[in-house]
């Protein structure tokens, strides 16, 4: 059964709850060893108001896992494994494939009311992220129809259904985020201030059920690394002077004389002329 309604949480009360739920986990860089491939497996308890026992491959990992807890990582060899979640009301046993270096196994309610929660596996993209950026993933694991994710009231990710996720690299910053029904404007969750850390993967799971007042977010931060190079201070993108003012660029050997002549004309007149030509051309096309 879906848990009984809890007290309705105001947006203001969500923030500390969200921050408290941040589980910062440091993850060693994937080892180069191909001999014994393993997967770092995180277990996310996304069922509100329930305590569950978590068992992996017949071995108990923890006996009373509260809602919004992120367990792990548990190191598992690549391949198929079995996970069991047991509460007072239900026992859910699923097999899952540990096939990439980092995965999340999430226990959550499906979009439609159901007698027992379901389990969804998400792959964590821990490949390097460009300098100054963090990777953000938002997963829909709540009892609500498809939803939009908004930043500052503007839709950034649209139409995410239960069991789906969106991901993007965004500047490291704190974002005022809320989740609204697709195309709607009254938040199902938030707005909350979401911190996205540079050089890390920040994962947000929307969980719970609005009617029960149990909508909430689980935030998980998995370290990755910063990649990409510095911003250039110089772009040297030409070496022959063929498009410089005064050069006959239509000589044999040039590849695109027609466009190049157009370019020559523009450059001959300089930066100011470019603007003038622009204006003239726009007038003439009207």
């Amino acid at each position, binding site marked *: 059964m879906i848990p009984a309604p809890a007290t309705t949480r105001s947006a203001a009360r969500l923030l500390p709850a969200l921050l408290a739920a941040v589980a910062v986990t440091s993850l060693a860089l994937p080892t180069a060893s*191909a001999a014994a*491939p393993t997967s770092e497996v995180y277990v996310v308890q996304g069922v509100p108001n329930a305590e569950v026992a978590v068992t992996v*491959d*017949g*071995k108990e990992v923890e006996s009373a896992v509260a809602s919004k807890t992120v367990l792990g990582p548990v190191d598992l*060899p*690549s*391949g*198929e494994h*079995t996970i069991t979640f047991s509460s007072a009301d239900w026992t859910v*046993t*699923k*097999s*899952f*494939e540990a*096939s990439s270096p980092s995965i999340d*196994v*999430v226990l959550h309610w499906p979009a439609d009311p159901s007698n027992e929660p379901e389990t969804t*596996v*998400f792959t964590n993209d821990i490949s390097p992220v*460009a*300098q100054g*950026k963090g990777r953000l993933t938002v997963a829909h694991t709540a009892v609500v129809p498809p939803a939009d994710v908004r930043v500052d009231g503007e839709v950034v*990710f649209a139409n*995410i*259904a239960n*069991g*789906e*996720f969106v*991901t*993007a*690299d*965004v*500047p490291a910053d704190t974002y005022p985020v809320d989740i609204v029904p697709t195309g709607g404007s009254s938040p199902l969750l938030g707005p909350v201030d979401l911190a996205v850390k540079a050089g890390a993967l920040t994962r947000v799971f929307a969980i719970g059920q609005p009617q029960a007042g149990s909508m909430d977010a689980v935030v998980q931060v998995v370290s990755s690394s910063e990649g*990409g*190079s*510095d911003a*250039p*201070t*110089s*772009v*040297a*993108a*030409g*070496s*022959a*002077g*063929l*498009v*410089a*003012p005064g050069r006959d660029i239509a000589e044999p050997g040039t*590849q*695109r004389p027609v*466009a*190049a002549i*157009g*370019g*020559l004309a*523009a450059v001959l007149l300089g*930066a100011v002329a470019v603007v003038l030509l622009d204006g003239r051309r726009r007038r003439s096309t009207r």
Partner: protein
Amino acid sequence: MGPNHRDRSRRRRAVVVVLLVTAVGVGTVLVRQGSAASRDDPPPSARAPTPAPSAPSTAPSAAPAGVGQPAPSTVAPQRPESVRLPDGISMPVDVVATGDDGVLDLPSDIDRAGWWDGGSRIGEPYGAIVVAAHVDSVTAGVGPFAELLSTRRGDTIRVAGSGATQQFEVTSVRLKPRASLSEGASIFSVRGPLRLVLITCAGPFDADGGGYRDNLIVQASPVGQPRPRDG
């Protein structure tokens, strides 16, 4: 030429033929094995290990967990692999990095452009997607990026990644002295709305080592969301 000599050369020819046949045969077997291995055998890292003895005997009966799927309304972030300029000419785009000297390490081929690996990708909501290419070279002449010299506001540029394309509309075309490219460097910023920044060289040319005086910078804003390729 005596019969002996003829026999010897005939024998020699036969030996060569046998060796050739053997070599071709062995080669074929090797190639077959190679391709069979690459087609059918997963790499060692993907191979499932033999079940641990501690695995419970109840395992086979468990239904598989769901697998989280990307929302179909979005495309997975992906770097540009080609750019189509306003004149309709497409160029392949390589990944390029900034060197220790601060210079963007562009492909020397004027027919290839470079995507700066510190910038944004197709499918991301913020920052600059930076693509640059040589305008010309002494050996190959004028390159496709010379098109930018006659590009105007409102022109359409399209970038394509492995699975999606995104259309952009040119919002500004300007010259900036190369020496001050990084001053007020918003063109490389990871912040702000998503935009496409194309860079090449232009302006007066100093043949005595200075090269072009200016960079030509074309900025463009996305028109709608990226679309799945061939969709």
